[in-house]
């Protein structure tokens, strides 16, 4: 892993190049650029319908310099399964255009829509079948591409166009689906959360995910300046705050003899060791328009308390699992 350093990776040309039409400051491209730096050789990418897919492939332009497939919204894991099966079959038969490569890696990108909700079945099936691919969840916590509607990944209390903060109901009343735990429960060989505010961590975990045999899952937070309502220059800052408030802790989970083994990553481990350094969720929430109703017209103590408690509980459970 000695070649994964900022200096070395800065030299590597991008797989996702400029000229794409995502919003200025979009975190999805930041994450994807960092992830793709960590590929180790020939790679095929498949992408679910969403902001990333739509904005990087507007005919007749493409921003992808790697082989790339998009077919539909809910099937990226099935697409990846088919590609991986092809690679396996050609290698086994010793014939076919992909047989010439000693190894071809498969990476699937999907948003929270294509993962938590409509794409969940395909993902669960692909993991159960044990295909060798890396699934990267770009979680901007709503169906952003279609106009900021709520998803299973939308956090409690967040305002979306289908869970608006109104006079009677204050944003989403359900909690965020614990996707990492669900994927870990499948026995997935490697699951990790990543945050573009820590690029080296992203790249190291991506390389690990690619190298591990079998299905691997990377969950990235992807703050959306449009949907979360903050000025675009704050994208990385808000992403960082998510981890610093333990809303989005950074960790890895591997499987050892059928048991999940959790390990907190440096930024979250530091907080676990020094709990007083954990920032209250308010510093994260007050930067985002989607949580405006927590503070205006008056502070909604009930909402703040409920959210802080649920974050604290999940953080505590994670720390226990990681043995900290």
């Amino acid at each position, binding site marked *: 892993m000695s070649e994964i350093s900022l200096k070395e990776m800065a030299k590597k040309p991008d797989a996702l190049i400029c000229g794409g039409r995502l919003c200025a400051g979009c975190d999805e491209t930041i994450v994807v650029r960092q992830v793709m730096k960590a590929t180790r050789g020939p790679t095929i990418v498949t992408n679910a319908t969403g902001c990333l897919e739509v904005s990087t492939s507007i005919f007749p332009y493409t921003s992808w310099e790697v082989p790339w497939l998009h*077919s539909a919204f*809910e099937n990226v894991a*099935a*697409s990846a399964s*088919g590609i991986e*099966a092809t690679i396996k079959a*050609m290698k086994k038969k010793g014939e076919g255009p992909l047989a010439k490569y000693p190894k071809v890696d498969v990476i699937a990108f999907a948003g929270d829509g294509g993962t938590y909700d409509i794409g969940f079945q395909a993902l669960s*099936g692909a993991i159960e079948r044990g295909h060798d691919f890396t699934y990267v969840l770009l979680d901007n916590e709503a169906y952003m591409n279609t106009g900021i509607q709520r998803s299973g990944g939308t956090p409690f209390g967040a305002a979306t166009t289908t869970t608006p903060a109104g006079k009677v109901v204050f944003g989403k009343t359900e909690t965020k689906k614990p996707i990492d735990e669900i994927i870990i429960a499948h026995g997935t060989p490697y699951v990790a959360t990543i945050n573009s505010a820590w690029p080296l961590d992203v790249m190291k975990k991506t390389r690990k995910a690619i190298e591990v045999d079998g299905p691997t899952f990377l969950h990235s937070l992807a703050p959306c300046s449009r949907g979360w309502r903050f000025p675009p220059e704050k994208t990385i800052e808000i992403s960082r705050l998510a981890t610093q408030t333990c809303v989005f802790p950074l960790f890895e989970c591997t499987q050892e003899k059928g048991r999940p083994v959790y390990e907190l990553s440096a930024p979250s481990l530091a907080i676990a060791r020094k709990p007083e350094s954990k920032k209250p969720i308010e510093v994260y929430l007050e930067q985002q328009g989607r949580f405006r109703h927590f503070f205006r017209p008056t502070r909604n103590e009930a909402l703040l308390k409920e959210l802080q408690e649920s974050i604290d509980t999940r953080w505590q459970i994670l720390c226990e699992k990681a043995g900290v």
Partner: protein
Amino acid sequence: MMIAKQKMTGLNGDEASAFATKQVDPDVVAAYPITPQTIIVEKYSEYVADGLVGSEFVAVESEHSALSACVGASAAGARAFTATAANGLALMWEILYVAAGLRQPIVMAVANRCLGGPINIHNDHSDAMGARDAGWVQLFCENNQEVYDTSVEAWRIAEHPDVQLPVMVNFDGFTISHTMENVYILDDVDVKKFVGKRVYMKTEGPRGEVEFRLDPETPITIGPLDLQDFYFEHKVQQMEAMKGALKAINSVDKEFEKVTGRKLEFVYPYKMEDAEVAVVGMGSMMGTIREVVDELRAEGVKAGLVKLRLFRPFPVEELKKAIGNVPALGVMEKAYSIGGPGAPLYEEIKTTLYDSPKRPLIADYINGLGGKDTSPEMIRGVFKSLQKIKENGTVDEPVSYVGVRE
């Protein structure tokens, strides 16, 4: 050129499909079981377990994922096969359009079964009819021999440079899929020789001319976003490819005829030269109708039939020629279009014949929905109805159902 050596063996329709596919040995088979296609997946799994094929068998968790996995596999350069029926086909409906629109030469066997609501596992053609606009080549098999032959040929049709579209091999659920018949099968080596290696479409990426498949050495984007300025043009490309498929399928048919010695046509007219009443249709019931035509002829009735093997692309010229000057034509079909002016095949045939200076009186006879048996008596009833139409010179009931209790 010598006809290839063939041996006769007993296979049901599903087994014929699986066996032919085994001989082709596609790289990826991704399928989900649904009655009455289950024997295909089971047999193929046995082949895999016994090391008789090099295919990767992907036991997908739904039909939608089955076709999605095939699209992924085919895009990556594999030969990809799947099989389904009825609601399974309905579940993959979205991806049917994607597969055809993205020009993936996938082969799919469909053991035709009626669509649920209410659920029923038995045969009719409503599943395939629902897919007729999607852009797949569709062939209908009358018997197990045709299932075997078409399942081998399908790959060459799909991958023909002028086609490059997915192909659906249709055959009646249970009637064909589960009934054993004698089938002449080729040797593995002759099948392999006929299908050869997959032929890739040539296209153009940002770096110039390239083969249409995912390869790290020649990276291209498959499945971009189209806007108003290009989508229609891309659809026309598909439509033109389907038109070109008529000639291409004919050339593959002629080549395969030389291998098997069996004639392959788009339409099969039977005793149509001097027919006064005739029936047109698809699938296994054509065999029963042929028997009735022979009986009627012996009784002095000038009966005839036209079997349609190729449904998409619709063989307009061949059909017109086969129908000829018959005065009264009945369309017998196991499908429906609720609220439409008729059922699908009737609508298409009537449209085909509308501009002809001389055209028959046509009536639609919907039958066999949900697996209700199309009996010889019922068929005789249809011919009787056609005789009355010919005598009266009018079609009093353009669309009727046969064999239904009131």
